[in-house]
């Protein structure tokens, strides 16, 4: 088609009807293709506030759309659809449907932070990408990412015991991401550990698998951390539900 606007029409917005009669006029078939409107008909003011309430998103309102983030973006160089400048705009104007079209690539930010150093307004686009990915998860638009699962089991363990016990972290991570524990590389690793580690160390490791070691006097530190986390979480929940 010789008009450049054709590129603006998304395939899903082209509507053809097998059989449709409007006011006695037959508009069936390919020759009566309709185009769904692209008009922005309202701003959703809640969306920016929601994402700004998540860690990293705080400065999104500073953006003046210069495009430095997109120009400096590592991922954009590979995938032109990865456009932080554009997403920041959609979020600020509350164009949720439009943002959701890209929900499966937003999380691909590699956190190289080139945008962070390029941004003249200190919007912290890398943080905004992270906040947006979390927002998509918490709103149920995307499943929890493996890295989110890992962060959760890791944090839970630290708060509970003050220590990291690797085998427990791995077991829980595998179970939450629905991966089998008996993976060939895992079996091979355990075999070699049994063969090569001194007996004393093996005994302590084995014991730790069943009895979780705990930092002495940890409970007050744990309570303080938990209180802070709950506080933040409640604040975020409030922002997300308003």
């Amino acid at each position, binding site marked *: 088609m010789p008009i450049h606007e054709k590129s*603006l029409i998304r395939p899903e917005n082209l509507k053809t009807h097998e059989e449709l009669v409007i006011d006695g006029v037959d508009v069936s078939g390919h020759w009566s293709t309709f185009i769904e409107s*692209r*008009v*922005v*008909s*309202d*701003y959703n*003011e809640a969306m920016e506030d929601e994402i700004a309430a998540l860690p990293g998103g705080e*400065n999104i*309102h*500073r953006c*003046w*759309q210069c495009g430095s983030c997109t120009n400096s973006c590592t991922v954009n160089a590979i995938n032109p659809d990865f456009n932080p400048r*554009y997403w920041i*705009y*959609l979020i*600020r*104007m509350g*164009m949720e449907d*439009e943002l959701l079209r890209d929900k499966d690539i937003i999380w691909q930010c590699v956190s190289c932070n080139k945008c962070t150093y390029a941004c003249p*307004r200190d919007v912290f686009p890398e943080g905004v990408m992270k906040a947006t990915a979390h927002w998509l998860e918490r709103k149920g638009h995307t499943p929890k990412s493996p890295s989110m699962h890992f962060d959760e089991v890791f944090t839970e363990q630290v708060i509970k015991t003050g220590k990291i016990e690797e085998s427990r972290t791995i077991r829980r991570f595998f179970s939450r991401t629905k991966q089998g524990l008996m993976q060939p590389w895992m079996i091979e690793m355990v075999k070699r550990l049994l063969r090569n580690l001194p007996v004393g160390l093996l005994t302590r490791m084995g014991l730790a698998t069943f009895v979780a070691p705990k930092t002495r006097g940890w409970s007050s530190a744990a309570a303080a951390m938990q209180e802070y986390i709950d506080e933040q979480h409640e604040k975020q929940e409030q922002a997300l539900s308003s």
Partner: protein
Amino acid sequence: MTKPILIVGGGPAGLAAAHSLGTVGRSSILVEKEDKLGGAPILSGYAKLVPSGEWAKDAIGGMVDRVEGDSNIKVLTGTTVTKFDGTPGNFTAEFSNGDNAQVEAAVLCSGFTHFDSINKPEWGFGTFPDVVTTTQVEQMISSGQGVRCPSDGRKPQRVAILLCVGSRDRQIGREWCSKICCTVSSNLAMEIREELPECHVYIYYMDIRTFGLYETKYYWRSQEEFKVKYIKARIAEVTSDGEKLIVKGEDTLVKRPITIPFDMVVHAIGMDPNVDNPQLADIFGVDLEEHGHIAAENRYGAMGHTSRPGVFVAGAATGPETIDDSIAQGHAAAMSVLSELHQPVDKSA
């Protein structure tokens, strides 16, 4: 005995010029066509001024008091100049009240006229009561009434400010940038957000020209502290669905048409040349520049010269100007008058 200097216009520039001359003991006649001094900031009821944040009635009111209390200055309100003849050092001015005076020089501080939004009918002013101008919002704030929709007095929940209304628009013969509207609008947006924190303010712009130090104090601050939203779009039309105003245009950054409901639309009106400029040019025998402002000449050797020796100009009479710069130009023109009268300089200096 020396003759007085004639100053035309009692706004910021005229008040500054009269005061300057007074401080060196030179007498002046300050002619103002309205019945009180102060110019646009007082007559149009501006609220807080850029960049000091002082209320106009205090800041400019103080200048008025100073002039009215100065025995060197003779104030003629409700008066215009009808005739002006003579040579530098030896002019005769006739006034609308029938009097006349011998003066040494004249300083034109005749200012500007606010753009009348009725000349952009597609943006709904005059058709929908909730379409207002920046001047009206200034008045809502300065009167203490607060920002309310004129139709029913409700607090607006969403306000759109349209920039460049009567500026940068060849369609209506106004090609100039009015210079102050971007800054004034971001200042008003912050005042609206301050008074009505639940109200969202959107500014539709072609370019943002909050020049110099106004960048951080107004443009950045309005976004960073007050969460005002800026959308790059020239609005096509303002209509109504019976309840809300509907703003139509193209959001150029996402290449999409927009049709957005608003409670109130504010026109950031520009500065037209004073409607009296053709008569002033005639009476005082000075040239106008291509847009109809009084042409300023010799901008490097001295400030405030016009095409006619002995007649000077200052402030927004020369083109869109800020209050600060109008005041500075008023002082500068007074200085030019003194140096011209006492030590005539070669115009090419």
